[in-house]
């Protein structure tokens, strides 16, 4: 909208600022809480400015962990979460781009049936099929392993569907030109399809990384080994410590740390895929 009304501009900015304050305030409180002693947070009023225990709190949880919750250092949890999230994101992209390639470019019997079967699993989230999935994972002996955390979450109807829709927009002539240029299926995939999908891959990676990072229920179910604790299950474990008060200062520090990697991924990848978009737009 190109309108020149000073009043509208002022109102728009006020609304935006209010919205920003409302969304940013809890995050600020989290940060503030993570820099105080545990006792400071149970008193009234709650502090609104950072305290002096920043290094103490973060040092404690990063390297030795909260005693009450089994004492796993958060660094280990972050590492586990990173492995799981990367595994899920990369695995999902790899599997679904290949599946979409097969569905779009190859004529084989029951092609449509396969597509709709994949599509239908969209309607069944992890929570719904958690029992059979657990059963299979257990039978395969994947409990308490990284594979068990990652593999069952890799199949992705959403990503397959997105890649399929993207491949359908690629002109047929490009495929034909590649055939005339002597590019077989694998060469075409590697030399033409993959480079063209770069922006889609980047966008999906962001979404899927966060999806993997935020997994809570599955890691909780499939792993009992403390050394495999992910950050999300770790945080929750600290909330529900029996027979003691929640250690809010440590909990908040953990939350702050848990937020960082997804933010980092968004910031870094956004640059990448915005650049990609600009390039193709030219």
């Amino acid at each position, binding site marked *: 909208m190109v309108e020149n009304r000073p009043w509208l501009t002022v109102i728009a900015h006020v609304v935006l600022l209010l919205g920003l304050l409302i969304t940013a305030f809890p995050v600020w409180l989290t940060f503030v809480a993570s820099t105080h002693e545990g006792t400071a947070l149970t008193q009234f009023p709650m502090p609104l400015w950072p305290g002096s225990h920043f290094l103490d709190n973060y040092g404690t949880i990063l390297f030795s962990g909260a005693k009450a919750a089994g004492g796993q250092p958060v660094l280990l949890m972050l590492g586990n979460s990173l492995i799981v999230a990367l595994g899920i994101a990369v695995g999902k992209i790899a599997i679904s781009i290949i599946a979409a390639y097969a569905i779009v470019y190859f004529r084989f019997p029951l092609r449509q049936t396969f597509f709709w079967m994949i599509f239908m699993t969209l309607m069944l989230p992890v929570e719904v099929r958690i029992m059979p999935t657990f059963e299979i994972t257990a039978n395969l002996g994947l409990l308490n392993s990284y594979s068990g955390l990652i593999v069952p979450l890799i199949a992705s109807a959403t990503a397959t569907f997105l890649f399929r829709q993207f491949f359908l927009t690629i002109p047929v*002539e490009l495929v034909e030109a590649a055939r*005339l240029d002597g590019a077989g299926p694998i060469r075409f995939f590697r030399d033409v399809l993959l480079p063209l999908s770069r922006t889609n891959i980047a966008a999906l990676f962001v979404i899927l990384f966060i999806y993997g990072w935020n997994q809570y229920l599955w890691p909780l179910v499939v792993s009992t080994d403390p050394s495999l604790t992910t950050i999300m299950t770790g945080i929750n474990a600290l909330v529900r410590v029996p027979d003691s008060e929640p250690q809010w200062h440590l909990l908040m520090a953990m939350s702050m740390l848990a937020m960082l990697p997804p933010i980092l991924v968004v910031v870094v990848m956004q640059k990448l895929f915005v650049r990609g978009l600009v390039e193709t737009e030219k």
Partner: protein
Amino acid sequence: MATVDFIGVEKTYPNGHKAIHGINLNITDGEFVVLVGPSGCGKSTLLRMLAGLETVTGGEIRIDGKVVNRLEPADRDIAMVFQNYALYPHMSVRENMAYGLRNRKTPVDVIEKRVAEAAKVLGLEGMLDRKPKQLSGGQRQRVAMGRAIVREPKAFLFDEPLSNLDAKLRVQMRVEIRRLQRELNTTAIYVTHDQVEAMTMADRLVVMRDGVAQQIGRPLDVYAKPRTTYVAAFIGSPGMNLLEGVISADGSAVVLGKNGAMGRSIALPVARPGETGRPVVLGIRPEHLLINPQQGDTVEVRSVLTEPLGADTIKYTLLPGCGQSLTVRLPGTHPSGDTDVLAVGFDPAHLHLFDEATGLRLED
């Protein structure tokens, strides 16, 4: 550098639709053949069958005498230029041109040499590192040509390559493609719906309709002696005037109008005795109509619209009484009195006669 032969080539789609009905065509080495026809006539299908992008369901296609029906496109040693260019958007001009050669394991120095040569011929030297998106339509078209040239194929296939360009550029590229093809002396098969492109570029024309080759011949032969009314109307801009009529009682003239209803008769150069009353279609090209001729019969027509083209003027007129239209091409400029009444004479040397039922040309 090759001959291409179509022998009874047919195409039937799995749904039973028959797109190509037995095409026979022998293309000699270095020849430029244009397949022309309206959209849906099967010309692109035929080209794509030659390229290997469509299967052949009947007959044989041979390149250099070798049957290629079952060969993969890449193994037929042909290069194709598509209407939308089909350049790889993420590759530079250089990579686009080199891609086919790289897949063929051509040595790097040979690739570089050929790309450099092609770029020089096509005037793309300064643009080798640009992406297709950074090029204009004409430049992209040239890159697509370059991709074909570097392969040094047995034949070039063009699928309406100029349709996406503006009119002026189209004329320029038309000349350029023809010049290039002559220089390289490579067999070329070119598909277009534009009869001007077809006339100007072709060594030989194939006029197609509904999967049938209506006429195959040199452009001027096709122009001078169209084999059917369809070809007569399609080739030439504007197309030939086609008027219904019947052979007169003595066979020396055609009486215009359905069943001769108009009453006007046009004398034939050669009498056709014994065909009295036969329904025919009389054809005459717009430039062969004479205004106010010194001798011979004339027909009075009413001008509906005048198109001044500069070099000549096109008048669209109506024959009184029967509602048939007649297009007249006059050399030079003429005042555009839109509702003039003109006395038009038919040049007997340039009359064409077709059978009304079959549309086939009636020879003298």
